[in-house]
């Protein structure tokens, strides 16, 4: 077995040193009646070449974004991933290290996280960012728990445009602490401010808005901030950081906590994970933050060095009283994002944003020129928009898939009121030719 180096001779010598005859003699504390008396019922082991053949045959059954033209979004996007990212994250010194508890032997990981925190804080316009949370949805769940810990209030107001999958995760997380979720309807695609004023009040820990929201519409974040703050609540903004080369930083619009899915920053689609939960906040809340934080300090010689810090917030010290139960986060995905942001720089991110926005608007124009197809909401959007179709979106999407086009997400399963709608995302990777082919295929599918 290529991963097990002990030869029978090694094993004999080690057993002799230990002073037992067989490995069985080391296992005597396992209750005899619970010992497994048969081999595990698993498929037989495969040699590497057979395993590769098997894995390829499985992978071949999937409509990946290399063979299909991808217009799917809804929280994961087919953005450009610069080549150096994969080469760097495959370096074993990053890939096979663990949490940098021994900082002297982990300066590489610590420095990249410090760079990551700096770049995320800069992009979101916030004071501090943590070392990451599992994904955008769990980041949002941690944010609302943090808001509750800060002001002790027990209600949360969620704008209707918050990704419904995120909403379900928040629901799971707030069950234990007994927080109450209140939905603010968004019938016109964005937060209905009159409805919000009725919901957000003295019991509200935080108002949550997402911009661009699940339907693709841009929210008036500054107005939401004003509304939340007037009630003494915090404003939590769900933001996609890859858009922030072009879109205003939520921190400059009054956000108290910014969270989001960082997958667009160079992390593979990978059927939904592992992704990157972005988490940033105002300085005054730093000691309430969940997750790891890396800080700069000096060593015995006065040289600059980096270490995990403010660890008294965390579960391995505070146990049941920790700010969060999180331990392992997603350091390697944060590294991908760090290299992405370093590679793109400010000009690259502006280009990614402008190209995505331009192509999305071109696509919206072409697609709504198809008879019977229209934009569901009359709101400004960025790289994603909701189309109303004259025929079943499921059937239309299935038809287009036969032409290797992933047309978008039929919304029926996530939002019953939008059963005739399709959510379409367009990134900088889509070409005019691909968009035109999509429009032609759509025209035929709804004719």
């Amino acid at each position, binding site marked *: 077995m290529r*991963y*097990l180096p002990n030869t029978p001779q*090694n094993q004999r010598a080690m*057993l002799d040193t*230990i002073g037992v005859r067989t490995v069985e003699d080391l*296992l005597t*504390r*396992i209750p005899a009646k619970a*010992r497994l008396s048969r081999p595990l019922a*698993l498929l037989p*082991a495969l040699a590497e070449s057979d395993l590769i053949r098997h894995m*390829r045959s499985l992978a071949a*059954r*999937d409509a990946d974004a*290399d063979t299909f033209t991808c217009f*799917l979004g809804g929280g994961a996007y087919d953005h*450009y991933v610069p080549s150096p990212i994969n080469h*760097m994250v495959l370096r074993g*010194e990053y890939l096979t*290290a*663990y949490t940098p508890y021994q900082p*002297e*032997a*982990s*300066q*590489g990981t610590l*420095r990249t996280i*410090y760079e990551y925190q*700096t770049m995320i804080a800069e992009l979101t316009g916030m004071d501090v960012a943590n070392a990451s949370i599992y994904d955008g*949805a*769990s980041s949002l769940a941690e944010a609302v728990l943090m808001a509750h810990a800060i002001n002790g209030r027990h209600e949360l107001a969620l704008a209707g445009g918050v990704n419904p999958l995120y909403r379900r*995760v928040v629901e799971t*997380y707030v069950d234990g*602490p007994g927080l109450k979720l209140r939905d603010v309807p968004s019938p016109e695609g964005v937060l209905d401010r009159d409805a919000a004023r009725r919901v957000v009040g003295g019991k509200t820990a935080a108002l949550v808005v997402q911009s661009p929201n699940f339907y693709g519409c*841009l929210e008036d974040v500054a107005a939401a901030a004003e509304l939340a703050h007037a009630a003494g609540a915090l404003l939590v903004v769900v933001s996609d950081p890859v858009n*922030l080369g*072009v*879109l205003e930083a939520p921190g400059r619009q009054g956000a108290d906590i910014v969270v989001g899915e960082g997958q667009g920053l160079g992390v593979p*689609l*990978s*059927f939904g*994970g592992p992704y990157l939960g972005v988490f940033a906040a105002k300085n005054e809340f730093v000691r309430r933050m969940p997750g790891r934080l890396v*800080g*700069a300090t000096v060593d015995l010689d006065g040289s600059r*060095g*980096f270490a995990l810090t403010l660890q008294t917030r965390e579960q*391995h010290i505070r*146990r*049941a009283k*920790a700010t969060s*139960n*999180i331990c*392992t986060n*997603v350091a390697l*995905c944060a590294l991908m994002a760090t*290299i992405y942001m*370093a590679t793109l*720089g*400010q000009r690259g991110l502006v280009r990614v944003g402008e190209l995505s926005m*331009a192509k999305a608007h071109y696509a919206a124009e072409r697609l709504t020129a198809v008879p019977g197809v229209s934009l569901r909401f009359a709101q400004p959007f960025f790289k994603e928009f909701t189309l109303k179709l004259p025929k079943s979106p499921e059937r239309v999407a299935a038809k287009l898939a036969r032409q290797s086009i992933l047309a978008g997400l039929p919304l029926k399963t996530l939002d019953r009121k939008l059963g005739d709608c399709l959510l379409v995302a367009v990134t900088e990777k889509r070409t005019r030719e691909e968009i035109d082919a999509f429009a032609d295929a759509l025209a035929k599918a709804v004719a």
Partner: protein
Amino acid sequence: MPYDNQRAYDRLIFELSSPGRLAFSLPESDVPVEPALAKVPEAYRRREPAALPEVSELDVVRHYSRLSQMNYGVDTHFYPLGSCTMKYNPKINEDMARLSGFGRLHPLAPEALSQGALQLMHDLAAMLAEIAGMDAVSLQPAAGAQGELAGVLMIRAYHEARGEKRTKVLIPDSAHGTNPASTALAGYEVIEVKSDAEGRVELGDLEAHLGPDVAAFMITVPNTLGNFEPRVMEIGELCHARGAQVYMDGANLNAILGLTRPGDLGFDVCHFNLHKTFTTPHGGGGPGSGPVGVKAHLEPFLPVPVIAKREQSYVLDWKRPQSIGKLQAFWGNFGMHVRAYTYIRTMGADGLRAVSENAVLNANYIMKRLEGHYDVAAPGPCMHECVLSARRQKKLGVSAMDVAKRLLDLGFYAPSTYFPLIVEEALMIEPTETESKETLDAFCEAMIRIAKEAETDPSAIHQAPVTTPVRRLDQTKAAREPNLRWRAKV
């Protein structure tokens, strides 16, 4: 003076920035940009550009290559970090996760066009259920702590569905910190149960706390002292008799593959750490993956969606009215599922059993070789890890932390230190099955050398490490004057 290549690139990326440099490649727009810009209100557009670095592609590659050299990893060093199972991460796992059909698959692609991925997840869950003796497994939790949260929430939902209101969860004082933290997050009061000197649960203390208000007992098997709790089945029976569920923290599953199963030991719930037992890489602190397995009576409460097989196809089953809900936006850390699946299909049943047998052998060998030089926290035989105490060295002025730092200079990463909390000056050593006798011998010799240095020259150990990119860091300064982001000097 020669050019110091390392110094040049171990600065921060911001300090390498030079206005005008580019590292990206994006096409010119083939559609008009201006009309779109006109449709996005100016108030929503960024006013001040983000101050990100401006570097070339080679700058990026040299900088991150250089930073990587400042790390120890399993690929470069023996990494005996107890409780973390820092075993070899096979390279083929990485290749498989990067196949287009997996790595480039959108999570919301139609089910009919995601059959390969769904089948892989379905089959991985079934293999994990067989390995743990559980009836069903959800792959959704992103890491061990989220698996714990899911498990405890399912226990809560189970009691509530039976109309029982139970408010407490019992956890031994030797537990990982995530156990009490996850349990508190699930809305329970955490009651600590005492362990005896050998890390075994004090049955008297357990019984005393096991009232009708107790929802569950949560325990790590083997325990955090590396020993198998011999009375684990009695404990389970005792809990069940009082209506409480038993939860197994699966952090130490690497000790028992093919030897015994949590389900057969009487557990109702257990979680897996794919990044420990099943060779998905630790990545410098994640991503991990923390599937959770349950017995049939808890199956209705599994997170949604459940991956189900209907005739010849695989579907996401959302119609589960008693589900605890969702934990991640999508279906779990699929990239880690591909790696774990690859590993299990590489090893087979005999291979997995050999994993645990060799892990146990290696840990006992280390314990035997070091028992004359350090105190052993609990008498052996141990399972896959052993816990030593540096209390003897501490009397000479050398702490567990000093031992750890000195090891870095001698070419090894450090064991876990000061955990479990019930062992004074703890050094928790988990060699894993992928290390050879030669490596273990070299490590033991280094540990023995440090024990001798503690007797002859303790002050030299206080200087360690001296061969690492930085020396001991001022942690107090880091916490008192938090500096959590770089800022340009003005």
